[in-house]
């Protein structure tokens, strides 16, 4: 079992799927599912193995290396699982559309490239896979045409800026140390000056910050997530932007190292606290913007920006609890945000809309999708018994105990904002009155339900038994040079506040059962139709009679003036002024030979003037 075979299956499988898709759709669907599932199995078999292998020497004398350890394994398994589930979801979602072969090719290619990124052992192969991922993601974002084209363009422009920044950092590392192998750079970088390390960190932070949508590099994300096809939104939000998280962990903890990273600068001007602050701002502002969205996917997209803020904050904070919380939150976010995007995709598949103002009452029509959304939303908020609670608990706890209550305040207040937009999502889509036109809506197909069921179960299992992922995460923390955490199957034991999820779980279950018994014993209730409701004597209209539009209107009026996306406007301003500038420059090329002769003469005159005046030559 070696890593090249894994990548050959991933990339070769993608091409094979495309070619076979030309002959039969059934074979193509089957092959796509088989390949993505075999990747899951393959990665799962590699658990707790540590491999490193140079597979190609010819790249300007640099070896291209693949390596695997606990750190890359966790990311690889997340990618494989979310990727496979979104492929399964795609089967019926994409069936009636055009260019489905191309769609499956790109979906598999993105997954393969992301696996390549986390398995890359040197920066050159990292960069190659990174570019394959960026470009195939661009093609998928633009798949729907129309506004999706503009969204894709915005994404790829920002992505290219990130790549250039990455390239600058990478070349500089090569010039200084003569190697790009990650394990070889790590020991020698300690000898570099702190100014140089800061430069490297900033260069890579721009690259990874754009992918991870840290403020002020977040502007591509809401458009891209809402315009992409739903299964790809799940991949995009669940794992693709987490390649930025992976990059941050790689550069901060593997290459630069914990001690060096924490010692850069001093006080609030250190790199570490600036990054923490950016993380905190990334939590709070997008959360408030998310509350005001009326497009379900756009709401989730802004929520993704906010949740990515938690991860960045935790990673940058640099304690063992924070790192565990950050990595665990990455893992959870991959599960619950993929789940939510798939659920909204399933709703959109049946209703052809994701407008939060016009949907409603779908809980009775699509019960599985409703329960899945509920689980996803609970994990997003961090309700106890879902895995989101454990990761957030770890983050808050370390922020409080390390005396950073303001960062903790941002994190906690962000959670309350999360409750508001989560409830809006679930209320406006699934609760309230069912509009007349959705009366005969059918359940979603099984291939859509299956991924949602799997993800919901995973969230609940890891919420009640968080020890399973925490064991892996603890091993990662130890390899980064942190103290080990005292992880048990159902939580974390320590002298300063123990978490015991089993206690919480059993208490809730027992209490709910007791109340349920009381509920059944007392007088029976009569089921009534949805329009049979108390209106204080007023007349009830026949069709939609519910309050969903502008759900948080009073709040909206209060905070709207503060929530302009200034950064996006600024980028557009740069874009339009660049366009004006280029337009002016273009006029120089008038197309008339006389002008060019004039330019030459003027330039010569200038040179002669310089020579006469200062005699430099």
């Amino acid at each position, binding site marked *: 079992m070696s890593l090249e075979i894994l990548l050959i299956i991933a990339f070769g499988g993608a091409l094979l799927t495309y070619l076979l898709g030309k002959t039969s759709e059934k074979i193509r669907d089957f092959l796509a599912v088989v390949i993505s599932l075999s990747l899951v199995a393959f990665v799962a078999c590699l658990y707790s193995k540590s491999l490193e292998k140079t597979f190609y020497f010819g790249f300007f004398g640099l070896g291209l290396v693949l390596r695997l350890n606990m750190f890359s394994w966790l990311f690889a398994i997340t990618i494989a699982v979310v990727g496979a589930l979104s492929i399964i979801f795609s089967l019926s979602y994409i069936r009636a559309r055009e260019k489905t072969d191309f769609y499956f090719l790109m979906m598999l290619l993105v997954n393969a490239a992301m696996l390549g990124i986390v398995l890359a052992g040197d920066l050159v192969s990292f960069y190659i896979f990174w570019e394959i991922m960026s470009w195939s993601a661009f093609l998928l974002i633009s798949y729907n045409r129309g506004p999706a084209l503009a969204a894709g363009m915005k994404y790829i422009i920002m992505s290219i800026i990130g790549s250039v920044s990455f390239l600058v950092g990478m070349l500089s590392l090569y010039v200084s140390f003569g190697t790009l192998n990650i394990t070889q750079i790590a020991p020698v970088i300690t000898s570099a000056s702190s100014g140089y390390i800061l430069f490297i960190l900033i260069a890579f932070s721009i690259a990874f910050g754009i992918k991870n949508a840290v403020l002020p590099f977040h502007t591509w994300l809401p458009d891209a997530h809402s315009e992409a096809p739903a299964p790809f939104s799940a991949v995009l939000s669940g794992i693709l932007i987490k390649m930025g998280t992976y990059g941050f962990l790689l550069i901060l903890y593997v290459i630069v190292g914990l001690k060096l990273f924490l010692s850069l600068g001093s006080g609030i001007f250190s790199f570490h606290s600036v990054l923490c602050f950016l993380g905190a701002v990334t939590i709070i502002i997008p959360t408030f913007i998310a509350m005001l969205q009326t497009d379900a996917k756009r709401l989730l997209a802004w929520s993704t920006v906010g949740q990515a803020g938690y991860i960045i904050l935790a990673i940058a904070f640099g304690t063992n609890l924070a790192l565990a919380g950050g990595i665990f939150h990455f893992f959870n976010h991959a599960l619950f945000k993929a789940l939510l995007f798939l659920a909204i995709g399933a709703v959109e598949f049946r209703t052809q809309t994701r407008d939060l103002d016009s949907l409603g009452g779908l*809980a*009775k029509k699509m019960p599985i999708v*409703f329960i899945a959304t*509920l689980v996803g939303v*609970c994990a997003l908020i961090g*309700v*106890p018994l879902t895995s989101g609670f454990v990761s957030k*608990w770890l983050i*808050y*706890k370390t922020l*409080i*105990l390390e*005396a950073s*209550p*303001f960062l*903790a*305040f941002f994190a*906690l*207040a962000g959670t*309350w904002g999360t*409750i*508001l937009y989560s*409830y809006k999502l*679930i*209320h406006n889509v699934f*609760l*309230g009155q069912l509009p007349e036109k959705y009366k005969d809506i059918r359940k979603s197909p099984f291939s859509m339900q299956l991924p949602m069921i799997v993800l919901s179960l995973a969230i609940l299992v890891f919420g009640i038994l968080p020890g399973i992922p925490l064991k892996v995460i603890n091993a990662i923390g130890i390899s980064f040079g942190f103290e080990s955490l005292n992880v048990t199957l159902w939580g974390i034991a320590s002298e*300063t*506040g*123990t*978490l015991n999820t089993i*206690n*919480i779980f059993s*208490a*809730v279950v027992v*209490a*709910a059962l007791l*109340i*349920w018994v009381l*509920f059944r014993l*007392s*007088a*029976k*209730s*009569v*089921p*009534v139709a*949805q329009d049979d*409701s*108390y*209106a204080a004597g007023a007349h009830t209209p026949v069709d939609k009679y*519910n*309050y969903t539009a502008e*759900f*948080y*209107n*009073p*709040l909206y*009026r*209060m905070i709207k003036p503060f929530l302009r996306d200034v950064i996006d406007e600024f980028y557009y301003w740069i874009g339009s002024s660049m366009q004006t500038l280029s337009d002016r420059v273009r006029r120089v090329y008038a197309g008339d030979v006389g002008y060019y002769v004039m330019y030459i003469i003027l330039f010569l005159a200038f040179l002669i003037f310089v020579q006469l005046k200062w005699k430099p030559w």
Partner: protein
Amino acid sequence: MVAKVMQIILSPVLALVVGVFFLGLARKIMARIHWRYGPPLVQPVIDMIRLFYQKSVSHGSVFDLGLILSLAGSIVVVLFLPFGQMCPLSNSGGLLVILYIMLLAPLGLALSGGQGANPNISIGISRKLILSLGYEVPLLLVLLAVMTHYKTISIIEVVKIQQSTGWSIISFPLFLSGLSYFLILPAILGIRPFDISSALQEISSGPIVEYGGKYLALVTIEHAFALFISIALFVNLFLGGGANPLIFFAKMLVVFVLGLCINAVFPRFRIEQAIKYLWKWPTLLAFLGLIITLM
């Protein structure tokens, strides 16, 4: 072990008795302030027993289960709160867990109400969520000040330290935080100036408009628990808990009656006014408290 099980059974029962007593007392005191005679103290108990035997309507399974979840959430919070020497489960996660399990109750009610498909409910829930965002800002600052000051996230530790060094409401930096908590207490309880989400005359009691019979009984019990929890939290964090449950309940009674008297005479805020108030004075005080704690 037996003592532990006894505590687990006993503490929700005690909390329920105290909470229901407070509900009755509130009606009596309000009536006296308004120069009325008021119903007897046991009126809520009589109502509840009657309600369990009455017919009711249901709008679907989420409508039922949401309510059950909400009440279960409240009971579990009580298990995590120490009162007196009783603290059955409070060593499995501390204040952060309490803060989070307190979510289950409003979330369950909101889900259940949402299924009710009545615009009054939706408006009420929307208001309730906005209001909770309003009071959570100062509340979080207050809790963070307490946790930072005592350098722990365990609520038992906070109570223990206070029993040796004195109540935190009279210690200097936390005095500000305590005052801020007291100022937002009516908003947390949803009583008079902040009864925006359950405004009887505007939106027919908001989230509970579709409830009747046992639903109304359960939601009243939930309300009693909520009342108990937010006052008990105040007593634990700022008034040094209690050496035994009796002292604890006496302290709670004082806080409750004080809050009631101040707020019985105010008219209702509009939602924007409430947010403006909550984000002005209580937040400022809580913020100052936190800053001074940090220095």
